[in-house]
């Protein structure tokens, strides 16, 4: 059959055209909600935290009663797994995909965006997106220096945070140079996870930010030659730091969770996390002592936003958008920010909320929470990461 466009087809296309973009428009939100009713959303989200799982379960109950949507939490260990699954499904021509919504950011988002595996743009058309603090929290629109372009909807904030037992630490080091002095004074009791562990890479990025001469290079793409030149102060710092680390910097723990465990056991003094409230959560579950303190480097630490995205072959796209919108609602965001629930910082601009909604956000200090928050520094451009990982491996890998 030929594919020439007949006049009739052109006419029907012309009739359909106004509707083609309609699904995206916030004006048509009631239609999206109506379509969403009765759908099941398979939400693929990391499940390593009891608090997060309980929060997602709560969101499921709310969505069921408010919108008739069944939210099924697909518990995963690693989002890269989901990226691979969607890629394989799309390659195999599977239109009824197994993933409706995925918790994502950074490299996984970039991969899905570049490989055209994402539905959208949809995020900025969600009614609640108007409440997002895009000016104060620019990482809600730029994910690891990659433009979001409405392909993922912001969910929460993350920032590199350190923690330890205040009873043993005294004054915690609040810069990389302080950390070097601290490590010299406490040999063998400080370390960081080996890249490509995400936290290990972030630690090195933080060292890069604190040592690089010209920070304006960081949001831009970079090549190997230039990287090696401008990152030299970072390598000098690491060279100076490593002899004082755990196992004299010859071995590194493979994961952040091992570092955390070693801090809890007393083998290490300082742990690190990307969730500023993880230390407080760990105090609440009894994994860390009540004397735990958490801090960020005084000049700021790397921060980013985590998002939810809809794969291009999702079955319940309408319901997935309703879920994303619900997760942005003041009620859901406030509950998420509550330390007793999860403690994940909000992406919303509280000044844009009604007085009643603002009152939902009751900041409270708990043992282990960050007392003096520092500014969040955006992630360097994605092209820095493979260079950091490869050169670290070459220098310290064997």
């Amino acid at each position, binding site marked *: 059959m030929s594919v020439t466009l007949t006049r009739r087809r052109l006419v029907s296309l012309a009739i359909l055209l106004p509707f083609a973009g309609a699904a995206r428009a916030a004006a048509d939100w009631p239609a999206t909600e109506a379509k969403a009713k009765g759908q099941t959303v398979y939400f693929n989200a990391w499940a*390593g935290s009891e608090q997060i799982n309980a929060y997602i379960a709560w969101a499921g109950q709310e969505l069921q009663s408010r919108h008739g949507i069944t939210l099924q939490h697909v518990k995963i260990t690693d989002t890269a797994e989901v990226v691979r*699954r969607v890629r394989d499904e799309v390659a195999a021509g599977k239109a009824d995909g197994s993933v409706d919504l995925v918790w994502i950011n950074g490299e996984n988002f970039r991969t899905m965006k570049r490989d055209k595996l994402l539905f959208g743009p949809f995020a900025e058309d969600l009614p609640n997106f108007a409440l997002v603090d895009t000016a104060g929290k620019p990482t809600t629109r730029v994910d690891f220096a990659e433009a979001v372009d409405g392909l993922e909807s912001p969910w929460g904030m993350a920032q590199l945070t350190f923690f330890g037992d205040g009873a043993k630490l005294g004054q915690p080091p609040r810069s990389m140079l302080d950390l070097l002095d601290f490590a010299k004074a406490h040999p063998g009791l400080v370390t960081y996870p080996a890249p490509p562990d995400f936290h290990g890479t972030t630690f090195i990025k933080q060292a890069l930010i604190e040592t690089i001469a010209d920070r304006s290079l960081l949001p831009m793409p970079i090549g190997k030659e230039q990287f090696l030149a401008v990152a030299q102060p970072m390598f000098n710092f690491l060279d100076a730091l490593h002899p004082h680390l755990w196992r004299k910097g010859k071995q590194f723990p493979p994961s952040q969770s091992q570092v955390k465990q070693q801090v809890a*056991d007393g083998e290490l003094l300082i742990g690190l996390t990307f969730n500023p409230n993880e230390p407080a959560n760990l105090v609440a579950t009894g994994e860390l002592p009540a004397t735990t303190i958490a801090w960020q480097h005084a000049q700021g630490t790397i921060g980013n936003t985590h998002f939810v995205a809809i794969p291009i072959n999702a079955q319940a796209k309408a319901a997935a958008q309703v879920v994303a919108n619900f997760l942005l609602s003041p009620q859901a965001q406030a509950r998420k920010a509550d330390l007793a629930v999860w403690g994940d910082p909000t992406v919303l601009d509280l000044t844009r909320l009604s007085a009643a909604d603002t009152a939902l956000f009751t900041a409270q200090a708990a043992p282990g929470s960050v007392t003096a928050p520092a500014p969040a520094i955006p992630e360097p451009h994605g092209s820095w990461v493979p260079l950091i990982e490869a050169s670290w491996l070459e220098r310290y890998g064997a």
Partner: protein
Amino acid sequence: MTRIAGALPLLALWAVPLLAALVMAIAAAASSAAWTALLVHPQLWPALGLSLWTGTAATCLAFICALIISAGVYRSPAWPWLQPLAATGMALPHLAFAIGFGILIMPSGLVARLGVGGDTPPNWITTQDPLGLSLTIALALKEIPFLVAMIWSLLAQGDTAAHLEGQWRAARSLGHGAGSTWLRVVQPQIMRRMTWPLLIVFSYGASVVDMALVMGPTQPPPLAVIIWNDLNHGTAANNARGIAGAILLTLAIGSLAALSLLALRALGVAARPLLSAGPSPRPAPRFIAAASVGAAVLIYSAVLMLLTLLSFAPRWPYPAILPPALSLSSWQMLLTSSPALWLSLGLAAASSIMALVLVVLWFETQPRSRDRWLLVLAAASLALPQVLIAAGQYDVLLRLGLTGDIIGLFLVHLAPVIAYAAIVLAAPYRSFDQRYIAAARSLSAGPWRRWRLVKGPLLRVPLLTAAAVGFSVSMVQFVPAQLIAAGRFETLPMAAVTLTSGGSRSLSAAFALALALPPLLVFLAAAIAGRTRWR
């Protein structure tokens, strides 16, 4: 006709999908860029060396210990107890053992708390040492029960036991001591039949990821860890490098295994004069065997005790001898996963029974010469990194529309169970004394009657061992299950791995015990059911 009919189910349900999975996975690495990227990886060669070294050393250590234990305990009053004891050790998942063993020996572990004390843990390098010694020892300790159980089941096999009885008496009457008789009569008969079990122990040790992450060095880590990181990466280029790495590791494991086999043959020829020498009054190594069993029992008990304690202890800071506070929260969390437990039990029961039926059907209908292909495929499927096979299986099942489907989930559980069943059953099945069948035939018993009344009962011990091993293998399937289930089903290991990915040691310990319990019960049941009048 029966030949084709006997092989068809195994080929259709296992071999063909598995081969297709391998082809698809390997085809994905057919890019020269992936190989270039692999070859310039600065850790490649030291990491490969480390993998082969830990695998080899752990296998040798475990096999020597297993032989000494078997030699010392064989025909002693303790012999019947060896099988349930080994079963207990086998039931504990590898990762669980590594966690428990780690908390025993690490600088902030129980040994240091009891022996050293002080405010901060000692500066020991007892885990994650650069040479991988702690990983090697942990692997060896974990494999001793498996090898002992294999040897035990070979020796307890009805027809072999009957032969050995006579040979043992003859050798003893010629003046051979018990140790000499073992060395010259019993051991040579089991050596060849241990080839495949040893091969899977070796390939497991050289490709293990979860234990290596807990006990192994990191700079460089064993190659399997690098591969695992690459295969789990979101970008296609890293995935391809991971697949190339997996192929390299598998080739290296295969080559080293082949070389070892040749060396062992040469050694066997060289040792022949020794075997026919004698008589020698050498006694059985009772003392050293008892000491080895005692040490192993002590370590396993400590590991189980520590895991139990940890499961109730959210925090256990150094140098406290006991955790400061106990909590039920890990077990409460576990209880929320009880539907996952039932699904896992169902899959394990179904896949171990199905595997047994298919493998027995193969051995009953196929000529022995074809076994080699079956066993090579089985060993390869166990030696290749699970992530790689899982990716291939996923591709195949995706095209068949079986992802997110219970049949697909069952098939990926069945695959490794069949591989283990084939390897466990091959030697007992092929060394079966056909004269029993001839005798039964002369009494005009039909094929089914012959199997049910003669062969089945005589092979009861290996069959039960294979079923129990299969059950325990199925119970811990994670990687393929997670991919195939696509969030539509949850098994117990899936719940365990995802819920513990936050690094809660208490929860890991609770899940480890929960994962160990069903296989333990099945192993013990098999050990009890295996106590036959043939002994």
